[in-house]
């Protein structure tokens, strides 16, 4: 008996996330003065009133399952919030489902909407889960490149060039992890037109939308004729600093939410009631916290982008998210060597862009969700590293 033989072929063939290797490398330097810009979450702890709401829920004995779709009070609050901030109207009764983070919502959508062999388009560089989620649902993932010259916005031209017959779904993540890329309303309209023309279901993960620093965020789901072919994914992790709570939601046409609910019902059953209670508090009384944190991220972004460009690492100003994605090719190093050598010589961790797909080559991801003091020192160290090169 050979244990690996028990592993399903499509899982065995799936590579581990490139982030994992780098995580191990950083872990080896434990105890040393490493400043990590390699994180993927806020440095703020969840605001106290939200934590306190969860404690209160426990005190009141709220320890049971909720309905599969989630607490109706939370779905109502989600519906109001999405209406107010994104201009999209969803019925709380049957067009909203509460999930274990956006990650689960993404997985539900893939399993509910992909037939074996279906093609799914996604833009790259991107969050590490998109392509594997498609593959795990027995689909084929088609990467659509985004480029530094466009500030990593997805263009309809790139979509058209990458399109293949049999494509059924398009995944968007704007603002984007790791590039901070966003699309203007005009760019989104062209993407929407393409989606209608090719009859694509659009899956839009807008987890970073509140962290848009310049101009306002537009959701593709709010464009005419798009709500009926779009699943809107969102959650609490980034804007409300609630990553560890694992709480998010999906909104969309009732039959599609119902299909996702089936998968959810037989797998997760429901999201944790404690996280749901905390999320409700976040939506009802947490907006000031979002604004306070966004203001700080905004200043940190300006700081890190200015410093990268001063240092000679060409870096566009990300319109959203808390990631800068500078080009490191001017150093003559590959992104992997840059990240590894920077870590060992100057004790600053950044993530090689290749971890986010082929199109991330030549770049590194630097998360600026860390204190001003740390950012200043990290940038000084990166400057020393680049000068020594």
């Amino acid at each position, binding site marked *: 008996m050979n244990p690996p033989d028990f592993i399903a072929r499509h899982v065995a063939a799936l590579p581990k996330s490139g982030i994992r290797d780098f995580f191990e490398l950083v872990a080896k330097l434990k105890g040393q003065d490493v400043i*990590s810009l390699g994180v993927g979450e806020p440095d703020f*702890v969840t605001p106290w009133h939200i934590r306190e709401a969860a404690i209160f829920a426990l005190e009141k004995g709220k320890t049971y399952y909720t309905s599969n779709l989630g607490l109706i009070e939370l779905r109502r609050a989600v519906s109001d919030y999405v209406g107010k901030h994104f201009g999209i109207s969803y019925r709380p009764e049957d067009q909203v489902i509460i999930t274990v983070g956006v990650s689960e919502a993404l997985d539900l959508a893939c399993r509910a909407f992909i037939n074996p062999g279906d093609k799914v388009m996604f833009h790259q560089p991107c969050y590490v889960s998109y392509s594997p989620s498609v593959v795990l649902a027995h689909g084929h993932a088609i990467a659509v490149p985004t480029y530094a010259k466009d500030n990593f916005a997805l263009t309809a031209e790139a979509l058209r060039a990458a399109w293949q017959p049999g494509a059924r779904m398009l995944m968007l993540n704007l603002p984007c992890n790791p590039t901070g890329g966003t699309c203007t309303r005009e760019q989104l309209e062209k993407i929407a037109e393409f989606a209608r023309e090719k009859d694509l279901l659009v899956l839009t993960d807008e987890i970073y939308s509140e962290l848009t620093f310049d101009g306002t965020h537009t959701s593709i789901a709010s464009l005419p004729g798009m709500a009926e072919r779009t699943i809107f994914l969102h959650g609490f992790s980034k804007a409300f600093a609630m990553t560890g709570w694992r709480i998010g939601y999906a909104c969309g046409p009732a039959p599609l939410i119902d299909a996702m609910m089936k998968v959810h019902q037989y797998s997760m059953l429901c999201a944790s009631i404690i996280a749901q209670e905390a999320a409700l508090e976040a939506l009802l009384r947490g907006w000031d916290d979002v604004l306070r944190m966004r203001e700080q991220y905004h200043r940190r972004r300006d700081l890190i982008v200015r410093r990268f460009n001063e240092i000679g690492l060409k870096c566009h100003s990300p319109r959203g998210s808390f990631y800068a994605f500078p080009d490191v090719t001017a150093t003559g190093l590959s992104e992997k060597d840059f990240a590894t050598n920077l870590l060992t010589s100057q004790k600053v*961790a950044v993530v090689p862009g290749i971890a986010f797909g082929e199109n991330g080559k030549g770049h590194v991801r630097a998360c600026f969700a860390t204190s*001003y003091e740390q950012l200043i020192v990290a940038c000084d160290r990166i400057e020393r590293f680049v000068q020594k090169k």
Partner: protein
Amino acid sequence: MNPVLKLLLEGGSLTTAQMASVAGLSVADVEQHLEQLKKDKILLGWRPVLDLSREAAAGAAVRAVIEVKVTPERGGGFNRFAERIARFDEVESCYLMSGGYDLLVFVKGPSLQKVASFVSEKLSTIEGVLSTSTHFMLRCYKEQGYLLDGGDAPTTRLNVAP
């Protein structure tokens, strides 16, 4: 808004050089902004926030809050009282309040006796003061935004995450 004031309002404790880095200004610019804030009497000064229950910091550790009722004066209202009371060295802060009393006075002294004698000899003898009600502070849990038990545990955030 003054970019330096924005940073001060965040409540961190950045050095002048760090503020310059964050705001994208020169150190001289930051210093000039700070000067202007002082000139405009927006920035009144700097003070350390100490845990006065700690032996080392307990130089003048008796603190009290005093509710003061006064008879407002024609023409001056409460201001003359408040300004007069506020000038005593023992007084750390002084506010005009709505509700059951008029002035709320935060007082600090080296001992209970010193604070008591300040109240009985100085504060309550000011003409127009009708009554005082003194509450001694027993224990502090949060001082000017800082939790005394340290608040949250050190971060357990992963160093590298997707």
